[in-house]
């Protein structure tokens, strides 16, 4: 009997980048893989230890000071860049998205180096923070996903280099905020986005896409899961809810 290979999912620095509930992304990936029979180890990688070897890394939102510290630690540690070169999957959200770019502003508005997994830069926006619901359609040429939904809350304006593909085009909300109407970025197996919710709670298809990369398989090969809770949430958020007062009794 051979033990099935273990899928290692690491939530990067929940002590620094755990402010916006994005830790849920790691949990969602772990459970969806487990429910399909994959052996999973979910790691909470705190900032004062070496970053563990993992197949999937999740970065979340955080405040300005901790964000700078997280970027510095990741650059000094080196594991994340090396693992990405070896094919690891990354989902980076909000402050985490800015960190995996090439530079981003700190609280003092000086630019700090990012990890450089995505060729993009972030500057401090001049207007009010982008706060609110976002809907977006995945850009053609990217892996297909249903309409993206999430909640953004950021003051940064992110500009993508020409060799970097935006993840989606916003149909509601701000997204990257550089005037291009785009949201997020994608390059190889690295996905960046401003969407909270957390993003995988609102978009389980994105979770399955990331898992298919990590497990070197196709989404179509996955056993379907009971996603009725996700479906109800998406229907409500995307405005297709039939009747708010209707008595909906669903057991999950």
């Amino acid at each position, binding site marked *: 009997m051979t033990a099935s290979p273990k899928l290692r999912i690491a939530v990067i620095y929940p002590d620094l980048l755990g402010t916006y*509930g994005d830790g849920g992304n790691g949990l969602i990936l772990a459970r969806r893989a487990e429910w399909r029979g994959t052996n999973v180890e979910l790691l909470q990688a705190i900032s004062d230890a070496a970053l563990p070897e993992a197949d999937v890394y999740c970065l979340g939102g955080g405040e300005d000071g901790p964000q700078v510290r997280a970027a510095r630690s990741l650059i000094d540690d080196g594991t994340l860049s090396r693992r990405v070169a070896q094919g690891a999957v990354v989902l980076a959200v909000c402050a985490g998205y800015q960190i995996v770019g090439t530079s981003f502003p700190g609280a003092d508005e000086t630019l700090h180096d990012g990890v450089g997994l995505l060729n993009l830069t972030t500057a401090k926006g001049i207007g009010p923070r982008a706060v609110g619901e976002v809907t977006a359609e995945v850009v053609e040429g990217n892996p297909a996903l249903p309409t993206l939904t999430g909640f953004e809350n950021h003051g940064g304006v992110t500009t993508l280099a020409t060799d970097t593909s935006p993840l989606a085009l916003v149909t509601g909300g701000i997204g990257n905020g550089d005037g291009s109407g785009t949201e997020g970025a994608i390059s190889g197996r690295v996905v960046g986005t401003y969407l909270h919710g957390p993003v995988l709670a609102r978009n389980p298809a994105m979770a399955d896409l990331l898992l298919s990369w990590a497990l070197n398989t196709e989404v179509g090969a996955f056993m379907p899961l009971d996603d009725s809770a996700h479906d109800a949430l998406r229907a409500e958020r995307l405005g297709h809810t039939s009747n708010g007062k209707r008595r909906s009794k669903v057991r999950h």
Partner: protein
Amino acid sequence: MRSRLAITTTRAVNATSRRLGRGQGTVAGGRAGLKVDPQLLQRLTKGRHVALVSGTNGKTTTTRLLAVALGSDGTDVVSNETGSNMPPGHVAALVANRKAPRAVLEVDEIYLPRVLTATQAEIVVLLNLSRDQLDRTNEVRMVANLWRAALAAAPHTKVIANADDPLVAWAAGAAVDVHWVSAGLSWLLDATGCPSCEGRIEFDADGSGAWHCATGCGFARPEVMATLTPTDHGLSHHGIWSDGRTYEIALALPGRFNVANALLVAVAAETAGIDPADAFAAMAQVAEVAGRFATRELGGTTARLMLAKNPAGWSELLDLVAKDQGPLVVSINARIADGADPSWLWDVPFECLAGRPVVATGDRCHDLSVRLHYAGVSHLVETDPITAIQTAADNNTNNVAPDPIDVIGNYTAFGELLAAKT
């Protein structure tokens, strides 16, 4: 002259909106009064002994406990009991009782600097700071820095602060006269970054609540003058003063967090010349504050209503109800007062509810449902909260006496049920 007109305006608008059935009219009247006289809060607190209470969680209850403690010597105390914790609410409360020599005001975290300047408060009680409604208020570290600057500029104010919370310790650390209390901190996720050097805060493993910056900047828990300690039988707590005095803290209000708030209040009351024993005796009489833990007849059954607004509050409350096996209703809204982004649900340890019959309800019941699904908590979804309580009573699968049904809601979800017609 101007202030007299402002006071009359406040009263008139309050009376009108009460008559029109638009609630207590506290905010409307106060707002109108402040428009006539922007200095109204200064004028209304001049000559009074003012105490302010702020923090992310426990403000309303602690304000009530402090009002009761400071009134235990028979002094008349005025307080904004309805939880309207911005200047319009303060003004409305103060206008309603011009004579009371003491004022105890609950203050929104962001407004604390302004209200401190306006009222020249003698006492400020600082409870805790953690993530709360990130889409509309400032990030928690920014709040700590605002407080720090305001307190440094108020040398005559006595600050009573929870030393176990590094962000509170940072905020109060610049004040001249601080009375540090070890009141405990169960939510550590917002406290792990050092506010002084952005290094890492390390908490001692002995459970004493002590902490220090592991990066070595020297920032550490200040020496405390009173400590909260569970009694041997674990059913109540002691407040132990550094000079050796010990008081048993027995409250009618449930929860470790309320005991912790009571200790901070007793220390605050002592600075105002009240014996802590008298303060605790007075606080023990408080059975219900603004409907928290109130029971109501709803959906044909009895419900116990509980409020939790953010991950720290939920952790405390889930701890409190975790021992029970009866049905539980969880109601989540994301209206303006709640914050529009319920992502924080993923920071709440709902896993502890596995095995209990749970009903998810509220405007954002579907966000909650997804969270519970991944927490391994089997549940029903019922969009209408009253029907949800009924459903919970009907689905008492663990056959535990279902009376009362525990209902936990966030701010507007709780408020809606409290105001619901029975």
